[in-house]
């Protein structure tokens, strides 16, 4: 691992990257972050003069898909750049050190860069049984997380696991897997949800945080506004079919061949905040909807617990049975309708017999 005090520019020049490529990277980053043209030179300046920010990358309960995504950041320059830009001092799956040597890095970073390092967390801690469901370096992960969070500058919650809980927190959540912001409450936390998050989004955010030494502007949910302020639906290229009322109804129907909107196939684009429809995946090659499959809302809270990925009206389990809003509503309205009809019948019968009774009396 390189010395953290070195500048980023120094490192990449040593690796043989030209000054020209460096400036290209800075402009690209400024653009992808939605910053003005001035920002490119600001970024370049910061990277040339500021020491690299140490990053500790920890793994709790997770599947490592965030790391997998991160290292596939499409633009080759991006990957090289990002890996040399930060001083990635600790990241179990990709670091050379192991065992006690690796654990020593944590203590060293804590002591040497108190309040200066960024803690990137992939996955989340399970809290049940004192955290015994995730042991890391002989200790419950939650203890390690708390300790490292204590002296960090800020925390990046990578992916839906760290942001919302994801599959390990799906009902009934036996290990009580808990998102980071429910465990660490005294540090700035940025959520980068997605299962996994888009590679370019990840690298761009790392660039932002390490260059400017602060978190970007966050929305109400703690997500960076620059990538999470619009829904998949808002930028979906199939949106004109939605507005026209042209929907796929079977996976192999004519509408599917025409590339119509997947709303009726349960597409969660209208309720999902992510950058897929704008940035796309794998160097902008495609994204799920472009490949003919609806969005299933992987960057949203509790997306595993919202019933089938293929239902427009998702099911509600709170009533003891699994049914959607129409089934529940129609059953309720139907029952009330029957009751009303029965009530009307009794009322009519009573009036008739009542009248007859009265007539009989009068006679």
């Amino acid at each position, binding site marked *: 691992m390189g010395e953290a005090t070195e500048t980023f520019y120094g490192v990449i020049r040593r690796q043989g990257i030209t000054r020209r490529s460096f400036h290209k990277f800075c402009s690209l980053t400024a653009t992808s972050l939605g910053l003005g043209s001035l920002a490119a030179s600001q970024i370049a300046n910061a990277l040339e003069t500021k020491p690299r920010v140490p990053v500790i990358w920890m793994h709790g309960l997770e599947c490592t898909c965030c790391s997998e995504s991160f290292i596939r950041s499409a633009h080759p320059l991006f990957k090289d750049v990002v890996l040399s830009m930060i001083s990635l001092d600790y990241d179990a799956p990709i670091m050379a050190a192991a065992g006690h040597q690796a654990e020593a890095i944590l203590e060293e970073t804590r002591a040497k860069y108190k309040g200066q390092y960024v803690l990137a967390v992939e996955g989340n801690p399970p809290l049940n049984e004192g955290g015994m469901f995730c042991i890391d370096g002989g200790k419950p992960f939650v203890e390690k997380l708390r300790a490292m969070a204590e002296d960090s500058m800020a925390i990046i919650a990578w992916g839906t696991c760290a942001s919302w809980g994801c599959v390990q927190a799906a009902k009934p959540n036996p290990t009580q897997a808990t998102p980071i912001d429910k465990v660490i409450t005294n540090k700035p936390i940025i959520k980068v949800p997605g299962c996994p998050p888009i590679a370019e989004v990840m690298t761009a955010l790392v660039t932002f945080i390490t260059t400017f030494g602060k978190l970007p502007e966050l929305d109400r949910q703690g997500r960076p506004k620059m990538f999470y302020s619009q829904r998949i639906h808002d930028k979906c290229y199939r949106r004109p079919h939605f507005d026209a009322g042209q929907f796929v109804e079977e996976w192999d129907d004519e509408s599917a061949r025409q590339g119509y909107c997947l709303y009726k196939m349960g597409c969660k684009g209208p309720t999902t905040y992510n950058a897929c429809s704008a940035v796309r995946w794998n160097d902008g090659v495609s994204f799920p909807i472009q490949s003919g499959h609806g969005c299933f809302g992987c960057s949203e809270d509790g997306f595993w617990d919202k019933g089938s990925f293929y239902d427009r009206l998702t099911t509600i389990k709170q009533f003891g049975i699994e049914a959607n809003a129409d089934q529940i*509503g129609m059953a309720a309205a139907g029952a009330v309708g029957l009751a*009303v009809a029965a009530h009307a019948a009794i009322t009519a019968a009573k009036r008739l017999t009542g009248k007859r009774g009265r007539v009989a009396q009068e006679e």
Partner: protein
Amino acid sequence: MDKSPQALTATVAVDPVRSASSERGVVYVYEAPVRLWHWINAAAILVLGLSGYFIGNGIPTIPGKTGDNFLFGYIRFVHFIAGYVLTLGFLLRIYWAVVGNPHAKQIFYVPIWRKSYWREVWHEIRWYAFVAAEPKKYAAHNPLAQLAMFFMFTLATAFMIVTGFALYAQGTGNDSWQYRLFGWVFSIRPNSQDVRTGHHLGLWMIVTFALIHIYTAVREDIVSRQSIVSSIIFGEREFRD
């Protein structure tokens, strides 16, 4: 004079002269703004319910060129227009609860603290269950109706307005006034799919209310010897015996 609705309803309900004599009593209950609001509101809800149902379930695919069609867009547009009408109406109705006659306040509260209120609710339940022989007479809503109005209409409508505008804010964006006013909904339910499901359930709550409401209005009109349906059209409650 005590102008609270209870005082009025109580005099009507127990006044021995009025209920015993065959003289016809007439009380002015629903002022013009309330009546106008009632029908605009009912129309808006009809439109919202239908368009909302289509929004929730989608429509059969429209063939032809995409650029020539905008049907789903129009359905949503109509929903939003009716949503604004409903909301404006609701706000004006609240204003009228403040400045209007005592009956105008009735749908906005339930006097849970008053024992006699619950006794009268019980009597209404017995009347609807064919146990009590005669309904009591009320100038405005009977106590059971008030209960239903408050929970199934007033609260349900407020819920629909709040969730509706929160969903609307998703389209208008995080800088919109809709988001500033109603974005807090997503602090309670971060996944807006839940908000949509709740909003959709609300449709059925209101449909159920409308079913009961229209049935009882018509039935009472026939059975209870007092004007009901004409009251919400012409404003006056007439006691026919």
